[in-house]
């Protein structure tokens, strides 16, 4: 599923995040998928996205430079496929 800047998303409640030197590992206890979050910024976005109305708000709050938004949107879209995050609206 593709997310946009206006999407409201949250970390899936069955996912745990473990910090690692490269970023973090995310594990989904339901579908048993293990996913690598390969930058500390994407880890912060994923952890805090549930507190914001849209991804745009999350990026702004976490200080993600606008030039990086497209690559973040792409990465987050793939995280919906593995159900690490889910779209609320």
């Amino acid at each position, binding site marked *: 599923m593709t997310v946009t800047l206006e999407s409201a998303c949250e970390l899936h409640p069955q996912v745990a995040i473990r910090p690692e030197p490269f970023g973090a590992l995310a*594990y989904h206890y339901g579908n*048993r998928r293990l996913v690598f979050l390969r930058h500390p910024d994407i880890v912060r976005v994923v952890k805090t996205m549930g507190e914001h109305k849209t991804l745009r708000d999350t990026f702004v709050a976490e200080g993600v430079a606008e030039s990086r938004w497209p690559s973040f949107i792409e990465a987050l879209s793939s995280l919906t496929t593995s159900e690490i995050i889910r779209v609320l609206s």
Partner: protein
Amino acid sequence: MSSHSLGQQMKQGLDAPICLTWELTYACNLACVHCLSSSGQRDDRELSTEQAKAVLDELAALQVFYINIGGGEPMIRRDFFEIVEHSIANNIGVKFSTNGAFIDKKNAERLTAMEYLDIQISLDGTDAITNDAVRGDGSFDTAIRAMDNLKAAGFGQFKISVVVTRHNVDQLDEFKALADSYGAQLRITRLRPAGRGADTWDELHPTNAQQRQIYNWLLAHGENVLTGDSFFHLNAFGESLPGLNLCGAGRVVCLIDPIGDVYACPFVIHDTFKAGNVLEDGGFTHVWRESDLFTELREPQSAGACASCGAFDACQGGCMAAKFFTGLPLDGPDPECVTGHGEVLLPSVPVSLVPRPSMDHSKPARTLIKSKVST
């Protein structure tokens, strides 16, 4: 998003393992000829229930997401359910390997009621003759009965785990069909010359032509078949198979054996690859993060004799354990190197220099014969 490849980062190690195998006991009702841990008899030094729970508490603090429990036959332990329940209660999912002997109707229902639990039934043939030749008389029927009980209890998708040998490689399609008929998932792994497998590897390991057959089969079916990423040495044939293309020993993988010794991977139960013990000061965390052995394994490794081979990036020199237990240098080709570089070296290895497993818990031959007669 990062300056280093993921593979590079993984080789430098993680704060905690991704794939941790924990063999709960050396006791086993079977005596498979390829047993990686030479299991059979319980070891008096095996961890107590309280010690095992303390290790689980430590793994929970490290955020180890799941563990692979094996043995021996783990269900032989009287505290098996207690240990599994403690693990799951601490958010450590459990996948356990079993020969199925203790999955009667009652236990199948108990297992079905548990969350975050995966079961792997070991099966090495789609018929009793092929399977029992490796796993022992009656073991095929035992496994099928366990699978029937799990199905009847509504467990859902369990796994059928197959070690691919020269004798069952032609049954891959049948294994898949068998798994499908149970709504199960098929897992196939590579035969290693570890434990008793060191003595039978010559007769059991797939021929070079069969390795190509496995590779082609995985390319066609790989998406739905689990492999534990154990066939990465076959990537030298061409297109890479799905999964992590690297040896994770001491970097993302390790083994805790029944007495708490920590080894670099489940296939190297040998003093050379023992990093420490979970009962020592600092526990598992210290062994994982600070032990000399694991530190060394996370340093850049030399490609050695393989450096000039065009396939090295694809196969990474293969499996450390397979090299070690066939007496080949660790910085050279895998004994099953698909280009044949390893095979030509094997005859020149003096038998006296081939390392033997450091521990052997096999039942005495007398007991084996007796139990054969009685079944």
